[in-house]
């Protein structure tokens, strides 16, 4: 068997020459995709084997495993080399993305092994996102399948320009040239239809090794290069990336002392040199590059792909999420976009819900409109859709809560690719690619969506709650509730305080202080509070609300967990001593009837969510503790 790793002699005879050669190798990242049984794992196993990336102990284990659980009889089952996790090995399929490494004389390769199983689109998209090239495997006996179209479409969608059509298992069709040509013609038609400009077709056998490292004698009719030759010589994306306008998304501001302020990041496009005029986005301020700092000494020039630290000649504001760009041709800033979205999560997309969007080093809140259409990845048809389910791909409009610095994904992967993160579970639920920004005028016709309780809350970035303050007259309910609301307001929360003053003067001015009227008072307050929580607010109420039954009635109106009973516990003697409004004095004198604590009972809460003992805590401390509870338990943005 021939080897693609012909440097053995060099390693033994002249290690320095070998290392010098290795040191100057470039890197190509590619993905392999195909249907189950197309022989992906076998092909990768073959590449590792031919490039001597397999050691004797691994080979011994492989031979033993091949006989025990292999699918190739007594022959080596290369697929066993690359199927990592035990559950998969048992099922005999690959279910996740695995990364493999091999090297030849000219290049180092990182291979993303992505599964062909229909439900695992998300893995393929993941593998494709970092790839320069895609190897689409086809079983020569089966030809172009639904999955072939799906994989090609995804590779194209993710912006992979180099596509290799590896027509595998040629040994099983007797190396028939006509069969190969038929498949290539079929694929050409499909490729044209989705906009794939060109591809390279190679007839191979992963199992036998034909046209992988060396040209096969069995395919004399084939006049192209071997798979390895092609991988070693295909042009890398980094060249095109360096020719683009300069962009550096700022990751981290390096400020070890007052004399140094550097902006650290990985260059996402173009090149930059000391003295170059730059513009900081989104502020639009301009400056010049003062230094390009690295541990190995300052650089004069840095290019796309390098991680550097830039110093500017002026003291301009610049922080994580900002982009330093060439002054003449900066990227756009916008807050409404059209994007391709790939849904990656079990839970379907919820239009109108607020998700975290991470794009480059920017994190913003974003809402997605119902899809304009979903793409049937099997035949590229546009389907009407209200949402996107796991593995679905669609086109939708996205709105962000503040402007985002971006470029079309086709122009710059780093400034056009993003992920969406669920605010509750922190799971990565979608990947997206921005197509273009929408001017507001283009976007007046918002599609109708139900504005649910959840949508209201999501819009405000909070979980609605009812904080029900209860306690004797003069216990400090209103004082504490007021302080709590001020603190919530300062923290950017949306709230409203209902108390006796603003309810009894209007809504409930027909009610007195009999038991019946007290109950009706609380019922109305409870209903109003519920409506306000439906609008997404955090509602605070401050009423004596002496009867357990009425407090429980309001509790029952609310979704479980949204009613928070705050018991402001002040002993009667203490409240009477304070007597801020002189009411206890009136009640004791008989001038005020049905006064709680004097001639009407107060039923203490059995198990309030929050218990405030005002003899031990100042109103300020109490408010602090309540807010901590509110933020600690309900905040998304911790």
């Amino acid at each position, binding site marked *: 068997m021939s080897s693609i790793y012909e440097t053995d002699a060099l390693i033994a005879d002249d*290690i*320095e020459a070998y*290392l010098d050669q*290795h*040191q*100057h190798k*470039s*890197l190509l990242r590619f993905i392999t995709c195909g249907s189950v049984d197309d022989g992906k794992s076998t092909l990768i196993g073959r590449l590792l084997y031919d490039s001597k990336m397999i*050691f*004797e*102990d691994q080979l011994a284990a492989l031979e033993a495993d091949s006989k025990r659980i292999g699918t190739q009889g007594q022959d080596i089952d290369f697929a066993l080399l690359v*199927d*990592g*996790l*035990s*559950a998969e*090995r048992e099922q005999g399929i690959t279910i*996740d*993305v695995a*990364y*493999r*490494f091999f*090297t030849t004389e000219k*290049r*180092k390769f*990182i291979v993303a092994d992505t599964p062909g199983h229909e439900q695992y689109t998300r*893995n393929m*998209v*993941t593998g494709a996102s*970092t790839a320069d090239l895609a190897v689409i495997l086809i079983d020569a006996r089966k030809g172009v399948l639904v999955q072939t179209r799906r994989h090609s479409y995804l590779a194209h969608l993710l912006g992979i320009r180099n596509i290799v059509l590896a027509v595998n298992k040629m040994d099983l069709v007797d190396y028939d040239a006509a069969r190969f040509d038929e498949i290539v013609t079929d694929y050409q038609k499909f490729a044209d239809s989705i906009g794939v400009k060109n591809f390279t077709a190679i007839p191979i056998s992963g199992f036998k090794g034909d046209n992988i490292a060396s040209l096969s004698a069995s395919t004399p009719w084939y006049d192209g290069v071997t798979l390895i030759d092609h991988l070693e010589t295909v042009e890398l994306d*980094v*060249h095109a990336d*360096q*020719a683009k306008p300069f962009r550096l998304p700022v990751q*981290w501001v*390096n*400020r070890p002392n007052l004399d*140094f302020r*550097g902006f*650290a990041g*990985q260059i996402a496009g173009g*090149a930059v040199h000391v003295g170059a005029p730059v513009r900081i986005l989104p502020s639009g301020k301009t400056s010049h590059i003062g230094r390009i*700092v*690295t541990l190995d000494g300052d650089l004069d*020039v840095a*290019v796309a792909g390098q*991680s550097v*630290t830039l110093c500017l000649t002026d003291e301009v504001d610049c922080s994580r999420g900002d982009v330093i760009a060439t002054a003449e041709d900066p990227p756009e800033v916008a807050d409404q976009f059209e994007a391709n979205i790939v849904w*990656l999560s079990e839970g379907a997309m919820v239009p109108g819900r607020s998700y*975290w969007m991470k794009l*480059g*080093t920017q994190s913003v809140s974003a809402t997605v409109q119902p899809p304009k259409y979903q793409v049937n990845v099997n035949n590229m048809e546009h389907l009407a859709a209200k949402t996107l389910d796991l593995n679905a791909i669609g086109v939708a409009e996205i709105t962000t809560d503040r402007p985002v610095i971006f470029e079309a994904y086709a122009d710059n992967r*780093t400034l056009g*690719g993003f*992920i969406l*993160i669920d605010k509750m579970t*922190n*799971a*990565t639920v979608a*990947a997206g690619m921005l197509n273009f920004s929408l001017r507001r005028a283009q976007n007046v016709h918002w599609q109708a969506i139900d504005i649910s309780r959840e949508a209201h809350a999501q819009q405000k970035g909070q979980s609605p709650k009812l904080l029900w303050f209860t306690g004797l007259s003069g216990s400090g309910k209103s004082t504490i509730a007021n302080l709590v609301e001020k603190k919530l307001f300062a923290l950017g929360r949306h709230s409203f305080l209902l108390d006796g003053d603003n309810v009894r003067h209007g809504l409930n001015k027909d009610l007195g202080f009999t038991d019946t009227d007290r109950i009706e008072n609380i019922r109305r307050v409870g209903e109003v509070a519920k409506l306000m929580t439906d609008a997404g607010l955090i509602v605070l109420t401050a009423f004596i609300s002496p009867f357990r039954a009425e407090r429980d009635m309001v509790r029952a109106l609310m979704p479980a967990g949204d009613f928070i009973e705050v018991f402001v516990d002040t002993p009667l003697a203490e409240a009477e001593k304070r007597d801020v409004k002189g009411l206890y004095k009136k009640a004791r004198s008989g001038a005020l009837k049905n006064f709680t604590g004097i001639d009407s009972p107060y039923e203490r809460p059995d198990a309030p969510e929050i218990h405030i003992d005002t003899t031990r805590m100042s109103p300020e401390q109490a408010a602090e503790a309540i807010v901590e509870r509110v933020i600690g338990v309900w905040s998304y943005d911790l």
Partner: protein
Amino acid sequence: MLRDLTHLERLEAESIHIMREVVAEAERPVMLYSVGKDSAVMLHLARKAFYPAPPPFPLLHVDTTWKFAEMYALREKAARDAGMELLIWQNPDALAQAINPFDHGPLHTDMWKTEGLKQALNHYGFDAAFGGARRDEEKSRAKERVFSFRSEAHRWDPKNQRPELWNIYNARKNRGESMRVFPISNWTELDIWQYIQLNKIEIVPLYFSAPRPTYTWDGQLFMADDLPRLEKILGRQLDIVERSVRFRTLGCFPLTGAVESEAASLNEVIQEMLLTTSSERQGRVIDKDAGDGSMEKKKQEGYF
């Protein structure tokens, strides 16, 4: 102005990007430092990522008390040179029970390393820990994410990993949950050696061949790094032979097999590595404990 980046330059840029993302997004990051060659490269990358500032996190060595003396010596020096705080954690339960590789078998790794790591992370409240694992080391490692999410109990769920696209990493988590972050995921053993050579990174001399006191145990060659301690625990005298040996990986000296070699320089070590016929982890006893899928099982339980 165009220039080709070499594969090492691209790997370096990727690792630096990953480290900066963690520092920007995590509350309390730490770098797990094992004193081996992979740790040495990771530490060097951290110095590059944050230069001229020192890396803005401490180093943590989860110690077993059974490391080679030369590892302990380099540990202190490396931290000092980088201007970083060095934290050392020895599982107090393992210490109290005098857990050792001879009497306790797999429990040695479990208590000192797996449990010790969890204890240390909980003790200091670290929410992101850099580790020097590489995807080319072992089959189950090939599928782990760069940002590997761990539950409150430090468990890894291979079925429930977050998809990782482009160079965007989702570092969001709930209180109590944490991330293991592997900045050198995409490096191979050869890349590591070559980077050490190009950057003149100091590594433990045990990687280079020298005459050392050795003994044979279960068909493998070991170095008697602390002979009195070994003989005391085994209750008998060991048959010590001086051989020219070196190590491909470094761990606890009673568990790390030595290879006979004359490779005394970096070039010779790389040459030997490239011409060798057995894989890097073969010298480690840990992978063979439980047969098929053993590393995967350990990782689910919280082993690094």
